[in-house]
């Protein structure tokens, strides 16, 4: 195995060994959201013509799970290794900044996709879904997971304590995902909040992903793809630069 393959494999094994916590639990959480919100709102809300609320909710919950778990994987791995000190085993090796980036991010993408697939399997029975454009589903799932995995890497490098990471997660990641249209279409919002939602990059990930199922979306999926792509490139560049400089990982680096 090459250094990159080893790091990738290690990161996969790390979450797989505690799959109850890292895979099963988030699937159950998403199922609960579906049962509760679906039950309460099914007969009251119609988001798109011909699309029932529960059916609308399923892709939103799948994508939310993909995003949150991709973030959780890279960020928790980094912060745990930093705090327990075992990151030194990776830092002492010839792994380049590109290999470190790819290893952490791809493993987190895999976790996001596994959890997303799990959520899909348990929730798909509750609502009618079309698969109008499967390629869009795949592309947005992959890019969304990669973005959040990269954000997790950045947060994990930046945070020095668990509570700093928790703040990053609770005050940034969770609100941005919840307000991205998981549970509603932004067209149901007042114009001001509709406008605000357009500044939330997470909105484009979920909207584009949902387009793949229904062929309907709040924004043209090509526009979403462009915005999501730019966001990914910017974050990846930042993360690779942090790794190359040794920022907060190699003492005394700038």
């Amino acid at each position: 195995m090459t250094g990159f393959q080893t790091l990738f494999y290690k990161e996969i094994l790390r979450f797989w060994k505690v799959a109850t916590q890292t895979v099963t639990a988030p699937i159950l959480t998403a199922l609960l959201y579906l049962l509760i919100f679906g039950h309460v709102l099914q007969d009251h809300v119609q988001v798109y013509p011909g699309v029932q609320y529960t059916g609308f909710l399923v892709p939103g919950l799948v994508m939310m799970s993909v995003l949150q778990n991709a973030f959780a994987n890279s960020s928790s791995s980094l912060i745990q290794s930093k705090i327990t000190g075992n990151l030194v085993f990776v830092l002492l090796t010839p792994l380049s900044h590109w290999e470190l980036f790819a290893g952490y991010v791809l493993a987190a993408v895999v976790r996001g996709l596994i959890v997303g697939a799990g959520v899909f399997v348990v929730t798909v029975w509750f609502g009618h879904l079309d698969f109008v454009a499967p390629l869009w589903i795949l592309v947005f799932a992959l890019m969304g997971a990669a973005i959040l995995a990269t954000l997790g890497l950045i947060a994990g490098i930046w945070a020095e304590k668990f509570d700093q990471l928790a703040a990053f997660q609770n005050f940034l990641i969770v609100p941005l995902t919840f307000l991205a249209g998981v549970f509603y279409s932004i067209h149901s919002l007042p114009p001001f909040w509709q406008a605000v939602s357009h500044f939330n990059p997470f909105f484009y990930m979920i909207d584009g992903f949902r387009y793949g199922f229904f062929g309907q979306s709040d924004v043209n999926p090509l526009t979403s793809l462009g915005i999501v792509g730019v966001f990914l490139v910017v974050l990846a560049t930042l993360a690779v630069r942090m790794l190359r400089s040794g920022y907060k990982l190699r003492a005394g680096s700038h």
Partner: protein
Amino acid sequence: MAALHITDIKKRYQALQALGGVSLAIEEGEFFGLLGPNGAGKTTLISIIAGLNRADSGNVTIHGHDVVSDYRAARMKLGVVPQELVFDPFFTVRETLRMQSGYFGLKNNDKWIDEVMANLDLTGKADTNMRALSGGMKRRVLVAQALVHKPPVIVLDEPTAGVDVELRQTLWKFIGRLNREGHTIVLTTHYLEEAQALCNRIAMLKSGKVVALDSTEGLIRHISGSQLVLRLKHGSLPDGLKPLVSHPAELADGNQYTLRVTDYTQVEPILAALREAGVALDDMQLQQADLEDVFIQIMGGAQ
């Protein structure tokens, strides 16, 4: 080409000058000791060698590879046993070692991993989770991790701090073998007798500077010399010998004196002086200085 070439390394942490221009050349196959009190800069220097820290200026090469500009080749040549007892709680001993090996791009390395485990008495714990190991066993794994890629240069940062006699013996037997096979060893330790027994050359570091650098025997011989302890039956020490007394307090009281001598040839003139003065001896001992005397003398002197 030196195994490890350190040139004018400087490192400052705000007000503290951790390293003030350290230069060392350690040749292939040496067993080199890096000694100094806490805060002398030993661990900072090791971190810079290992790429865990960056120097403000100066450079380090390992077998000719710069640790910053050519870090991949440099790290392939280096194995570091960190001072802190760290481990990854998710994995077993064998998984830990296989992964460490994989980071260095090594496939099918189980034969060497088994050999390292056998030499460090870890075989019985191969499939035990790291969390379940005692402190001593974790320390062995830490050593094994540094050796999975058979690095020609091995740096051990206080590997025997707080470990039992058995592990110390196991470790030195194995490290000694690697050294005989040509691996270069760099050791920091607070156990000076350990350094004296193992190292062929020693550098002493104080406040970020090298204050002594010589072969182990050379340091002991030149810096400290020997000590001649005399206990007199009656009479007092002749005036001519008083300048040799190393502890002035002895002149004021008692009949026992410790005299500094650089070599054995000085003993006869001292005895002659005592005979001439009519002083009889009750007891006499010639004590070889050890590394601890050298250490205390150097650390006390180099302010």
